[in-house]
């Protein structure tokens, strides 16, 4: 197996770990961490694919850059929601909002 193929394997494994754990774990922060790890796995696959050619494929690098910014904004929003639901868990009544 060539070097890019090894890193693709690593990426896929990290993605699988992250995704599986995301579907089964209960704690919200850990789920967000799992989401980030799964995303990192996918990015690792993309960058490994880019490394197949010399110079490496700039399109895939740009995709991963865009992906990272989206991942960060999603994580930011997720954390704000975690904070709100933690506040909410203290005194909100059950059931749906008006």
């Amino acid at each position, binding site marked *: 197996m060539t070097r*890019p*193929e*090894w*890193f*693709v*394997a*690593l990426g*896929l*494994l990290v*993605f*699988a*770990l*992250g*995704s*599986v*754990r995301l579907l*089964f*774990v209960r*704690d*919200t*922060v*850990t789920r*967000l*961490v*799992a989401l*980030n*790890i799964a995303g*990192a796995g996918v*990015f690792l*696959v993309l960058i490994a*694919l*880019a*490394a*197949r*050619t010399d*110079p*490496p*494929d*700039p*399109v895939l*690098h*740009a995709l991963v*850059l*865009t992906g*990272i*910014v989206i*991942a*960060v*904004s*999603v994580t*930011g*929003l997720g*954390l*704000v929601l*975690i*904070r*709100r*639901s*933690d*506040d909410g868990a203290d005194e909100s009544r059950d059931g749906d909002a008006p």
Partner: protein
Amino acid sequence: MTAAVVLDALLAAGVLVTAVVALWHRERAASVTVFLGFGVLLTAIWARLGAPDVALAEAALAAGVTGALMTTVVAGRTRSTAPASRSSRAVDVAEGAVAVGVGVALTAVTVGAMRSAAPVLTGDVATEALPDSVVAHPVTAVLLDFRTYDTMLEIVVLAVAALAAVSTLRDAAPALSVPVDRRPVLTGAVAALTPVLVVLAAWLLVAGSDRPGGAFQSGAVVTGIVLLTVLTGTLRLPSARTTRLLLAVGSTVFLVVALATALTTGWLTLENPWGGTAVVALEAVLAVSIGVCLAVLALAGSTRA
């Protein structure tokens, strides 16, 4: 050569171990800390795989800013709200086994696909088209010349995320309110550091047109600057209105540029001679926008609704 292989193997092992620990650890704070370690190792791997831009972004954004965001939330709340289900060791192993199985299966298919890959990759076509682009550095050319539309959407995503975060605050005109830490040593250090960071951000921005760097990386540094100055009180927290204004300015400019180019050269088409300067201008707007949006996300996270 074997040293490189050993280094790669070590980095790979490190990434795997930190991932597993971060995912399966019971304690919230511990899993977040290990996750930050995972981010650092990942930065090294990006460098090893010949992707300096991504390494920079990973270090600044993924490890840096995400770390800041997570610690602000987790620091406040160490106990995890979810019921501490003592799922037994066997369940964890089973989950791990499933993951490994999925990983191996996907690898088999992907490697097969890589080996019968198409002769012409888009990357090669992009590299050939580089000379006609308005920017020299390949990654920046893709981001801001070939696939400008993607970058535009991505900035809108960031602005919307920040807006959504701000909109969850309680009162109608949500203003950010954050505990300020005025310890002299800290404020002194920040006062000294800020100009250096500003220069670094500016340099990163300009460098982007012909070497690794650019809007995303300098945006992260801008986030750092904003957070440091606000948390130490050197920069007064903006009012609700100005917060919203700053949030939206980045994507508004980009969208206006899109409309402008539509009427002239064609949607998002940048041409020389003004193409190069347009890219740098766009990058500046991007950097400020990313900086502000991520800072707002962090501050909204720590503002008590």
